[in-house]
Each structure stands twice: as C-alpha cells, then as structure tokens.
C-alpha cells in the first residue's frame, strides 16, 4: 500500500462513489444513441464513402493515379502513414509507460487513448498496403512465406521489412492489452444489461469474467508485464519507422538523430490527438468529473516537453547540416527553409515549435478552448513535419536535372480522406458501444482520490471502528 499526499489534487471530482462510476460510464452504452451521434457517424461514413472512390481507383488503375513522379516516389502516402502511426503512439504510452511510472491520472484517459491508437494504426496501415499496388499479393512481399521461386525470402536487412514486423507486433500487442483491460468492464455492462441482445453480446465479449480474486491477481500480473513489454515496443516502432529514412543516403534523411526525434514527435502528435478527441468526448458525454482540468493540464505539460524535444531536434538538424560540411546536406536544409516548399517548413516550425510553448502560461494550458485549438494546430504541424522531411528531401537531391515538384492529385487527397473517415467511424462506434473510461481502474482510485473520500468515512457507512480504517491508504 502507498500513501497519497493530502495536498495532491483529486483525480475524480464531484464526489463520485464507486456506483456512480458504473452508472456514468454504462449509461452511455445503455441509452439510445443520440441524434448528435447519428450525425457524427453519418459524417464520418460520408468521408469514408467519398474516400473509398479514391481507394477503388488506386486499386483498379494503380498508384499512377497518385501525384508521384520518378523523382518523388514517396509523398502523401508515407507522410500520412507516419502521421497516423505517430498519432497511434499516445495510447500505449499512456497505458504502458504511465502505468510503470504509477501515474494514476492515466486511468481516466487510457481506454479511449488506446482505442485511438488501434484505429490510428489501422488507418496508417492503409497506406503501405495500397502503395503495394496489388495488395492481394502483398503477403509474398512482406512475410517470409515459401514461394514458387524456390523460396526467395524477404530481405531481413531492409528497414521496410522491419517496419512490417514492428507495426504488426505493435498493433497485435496493443489490441491484446486494450482488450484485456476491457474484459472486466464488459462484465459490468453484462451484469447490468436488461435486453437479451446486450446480455448476449456483452456476455460473449466479457469472456465469462466474474471478478474473482484469483483472476484479478493474475490480471494485474499480466497488465504489468504487458506494460513492461509495450514500453520498449512503443519506442521501437517509431524508431524503426525512422530507419525507413535514416538508413537511406538521401540528404536530410541520413541522420542518427532520427529515432529519438521521431519518437518525441510521435508522442507529441499522439497527445495532441488524444486531447482533440477527449475534449469532445468529455463534453458530449458529460465526463467533466473524470477528465478534469487537472488531466488536461498534465497532457499539456507532456506536449510542452515533447514539443520542445522536437524543436531542439529541428535546430540540431540545422546545426549538423552546417557543421558536417557536406554540401548536399547543407543545401537540403537551405532548400527546406527558403526553397519552393518554404511555406511547408515555416508552417511546421510555427505549429510545432512556437505554438506548444504557449502552454507555459498556466491560463492557456488550463483553458479548454485554447487546448482544443492548439491540439489541432499541433496535428497540422506534425503532418507538415512529415511532408517537409519526405517531399523536400526528395524533390531536389544529388542530380539537378531530375529535380521536380510534387503535385498531389484528388486521389492522394481521397485516400487520406478515406483513412480519416475510417478512423472517426471506428472512434464513434467505440464511443457508443464500449465503456469509454476504464471503470475498474477508476473505481480502484475513487476512495483515495475522490473529493468525497473523507465524507464517506465520517458518515460511517462501514461498520469498522475508525482507527481500523486507513483513510489515506490507496490501492495501486
């Protein structure tokens, strides 16, 4: 047992009891969907449908539909891929790394953040899959499968192959981690269910969970080890994504700073997306007592830290380009800042380096409106970061005769819209049918951190004499 300092701010406000947690979270699953929800789902299904046309044409006519040319062989597809994978980093970071650090404020947000991770990784995976051109043959190019060429295997020296293993492992393990956490909450919904359909569906999903002490004991061991496994995993994924670039010889890509720089950027953009989604969910579902200003402030502090790491990385890149004395490297960075794509570079700099610094002001980092706007700005900035790294490095490399510009087509845009529609469709489905807050975890901290805690003990709802109670002792 650990003792919580009395000066620590309560994590759950409004004097919630354990039963209130069940009601507040389950109510959203049990009640009829609102008009707002239907409109939101209709809008995201609309994006999905519009985008599907671009996906269909990409598959039917080939990736020639995109704006790629022989100089710029990678553009929006990999930009969007890295952007989505980066967004997918916050969920596992919150649930795994913050679990190891015993940061209990994670408990109200980890469920939705992990869901976001999984949906973001699915969206990310669309791009490499579509870029294969004929994805139905993709298994032969991606996986070490015996084939008719006398087993010409995949190349294990290639970072692109490492990416296949990293992303699929990350997706699988995150999904398992998320689902294990969902089982007790599905059981809560099952035990409250009135209708036959919800009882059957949540009964099937809850895997026969009954909350026995023995299972909880094992569950905790599993959660801790999964957190331990996910921590290096989440860091490895974006490290390996950065290897896609860093192991090549393109000026602006061939740098050893890439792994930490990409990981920081991923956490930065991931937290921004968590904030965007949680601020809406919190408002619509009236979860202000669970996701408090305190939570928002904590996430904003992480945004300052990772945003500053990203800023330092940008400046280090510039310094190293000059200090290395390599003419091509120097030109790559000069071209980024002053070349034809200067606007992308300065959008990136403004959104990622300057805007998060506003969070140093307490008024801004505790303001919901300011946080929401800045979280969207950060996501725009992080998209431009990937665009700047990829397109401005490729469009002018060693041979001036093959310099070119990149012009996206509506199919580039369409595939991007498709993944946005996919992401939001999944997220809205999750928000309606899944418990958006990890009830079991929040219940375990309610006594120690809820504002009502002393009141419960004073009114004496328990039959034990007061000296036997441990008022500040908490579970975790």
């Amino acid at each position, binding site marked *: *047992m650990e003792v919580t300092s009395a000066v620590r701010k309560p994590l759950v406000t409004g004097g919630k009891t*354990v039963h209130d947690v*069940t009601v507040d979270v389950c109510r959203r699953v049990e009640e009829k969907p609102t008009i707002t929800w239907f409109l939101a789902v209709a809008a995201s299904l609309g994006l999905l449908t519009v985008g599907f046309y671009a996906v269909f044409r990409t598959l039917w006519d080939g990736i020639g539909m995109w704006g790629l040319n022989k100089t710029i062989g990678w553009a929006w597809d990999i930009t969007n891929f890295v952007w989505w994978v980066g967004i997918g980093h916050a969920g596992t970071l919150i649930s795994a790394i913050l679990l190891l650090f015993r940061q209990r404020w994670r408990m109200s947000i980890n469920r939705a953040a992990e869901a976001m991770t999984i949906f973001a990784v699915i969206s990310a995976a669309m791009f490499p899959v579509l870029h294969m051109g004929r994805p139905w043959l993709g298994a032969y190019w991606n996986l*070490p499968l015996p084939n008719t060429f006398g*087993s*010409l*295997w*995949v*190349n*294990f*020296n290639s*970072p692109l192959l*490492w990416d296949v*293993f*990293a992303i699929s*492992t990350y997706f*699988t*393990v995150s999904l*398992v981690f998320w689902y294990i956490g969902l089982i*007790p909450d599905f*059981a*809560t919904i*099952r*035990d*409250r269910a009135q209708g036959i359909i919800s009882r059957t569906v949540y*009964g099937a999903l*809850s*895997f*026969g*969970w*009954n*909350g*026995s*002490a*023995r299972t*909880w*004991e*094992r*569950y905790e061991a*599993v959660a801790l*080890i*999964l957190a331990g496994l996910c921590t*290096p*995993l989440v860091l*490895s994924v974006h490290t*390996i994504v950065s*290897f896609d670039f860093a192991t090549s010889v393109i000026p602006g890509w061939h740098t050893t700073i890439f792994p930490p720089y990409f990981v920081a950027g991923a956490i930065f953009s991931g937290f921004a997306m968590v904030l965007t989604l949680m601020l809406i969910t919190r408002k619509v579902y009236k979860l202000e007592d669970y996701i408090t200003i305190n939570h928002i402030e904590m996430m904003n502090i992480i945004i300052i830290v990772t945003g500053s790491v990203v800023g330092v990385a940008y400046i280090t890149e510039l310094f190293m380009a000059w200090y290395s004395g390599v003419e091509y490297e120097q030109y790559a960075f000069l071209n980024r800042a002053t070349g034809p794509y200067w606007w992308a570079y300065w959008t990136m700099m403004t959104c990622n380096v300057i805007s998060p610094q506003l969070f140093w002001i307490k008024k801004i980092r505790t303001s919901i409106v300011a946080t929401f706007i800045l979280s969207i700005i950060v996501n725009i900035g992080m998209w431009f970061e990937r665009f700047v790294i990829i397109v401005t490095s490729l469009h002018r490399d060693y041979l001036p005769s093959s310099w070119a510009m990149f012009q996206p087509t509506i199919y580039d845009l369409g595939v991007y819209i498709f993944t946005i529609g996919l992401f939001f469709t999944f997220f809205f489905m999750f928000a309606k049918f899944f418990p958006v807050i990890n*009830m*079991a*975890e929040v*219940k*375990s901290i309610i*006594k120690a951190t809820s504002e009502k805690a002393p009141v419960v003990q004073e009114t004496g*709802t*328990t039959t*034990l004499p007061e000296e036997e109670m*441990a008022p500040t*002792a908490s*579970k*975790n």
Partner: protein
Amino acid sequence: MTAGNKFLVGVFDDDDVLLKAVTKVRESGIRIHECYTPFPVHGLGDALGYKRSKLPIAAFMFGMLGTSLALLMQFYMMDIDWPMIIGGKNYSSIPTFFPVTFELTVLLSALGMVGVFMIISDLRPYGKAKVFDLRATDDKFIMAIDLAKNSISIDEIKQTLEGAGAIEVNEKRGQ
C-alpha cells in the same frame, strides 16, 4: 466452481472491510471459496493465502521462444536456404537481425502469456460467467463460502460474516 453446492455469500460494500473480514474469517477456521470484487483489491490474494502468479515465468519462456525462432528463421533464410549478397555485406549480419528478433520476442511473449492467462482463468469468448452476485462487477465485494467444505455450522459462519462487516449474507447454489 463446484456446481450445485450450497454457498454462503457475504456482501461487503467496502474493500478495506472485505480485506479485514477475509483475515478474520480465515482466523476463525472457515475456508473461503473465493472473493469477487469490482476492481483489483491489493493484498486480497495474500489475505486469501494465494501464491504469487507464475505468469511472469510463462512470459519469459514465450519471449525466449520468440527470440530463438526469430534468430533461427533469419539465419536459415538469409544464410543457409538462399544466401544473397546485399550491399556487399555478409550473408547474415547480426545487427540487422535485431529489430525483427526484438519484435518477435515481444509478440510471442505477450501472446503466449495472455493465452496462458486466459486458459488458466477459464476466460474465453462466450464463456459463461459463474456469478454469485451481479453487484460484484458494480460496487459490492463478495465473499463466497462453500458449505460442503466447511464443518462449522451455517449460523456460526453467518455470525462471523456479519461480525466482520457484511451488509448481507445470502444462501446461494453454485453454478
């Protein structure tokens, strides 16, 4: 769970009360079948006399299996079955095998451990939940006592449970 047996089910509304009750009940010589709680209560396993889970060992073994399989696969494919010179380097260069080896270690460790956890805890899709009290997943803490395994009289057990702070004591049949 022993189907058909008669159980005495004590309902508690506080985790600290349950924790102390478990010790008290066990001290009075009553064998507890199991406790059911809406969230993990730390120290409950110790109070019930459960041994520490061996799942970490399973995780380690599966992880080692992942490491070995990944290394074997890569050496076999790149060095033995179809050796190729790529970029003028060795057929098999250990540093480039690290990422895939790491990922497969994590993958097998996680999946193997979770698989073992599901099997030993009898968790599976459509698995039937053996529930004594539906409130155990909401806000109540349940202690079940198998009467067939205790020689102490029902009334005495009831009294002990109530004395330990149970708000209700019910008789139920095991499922």
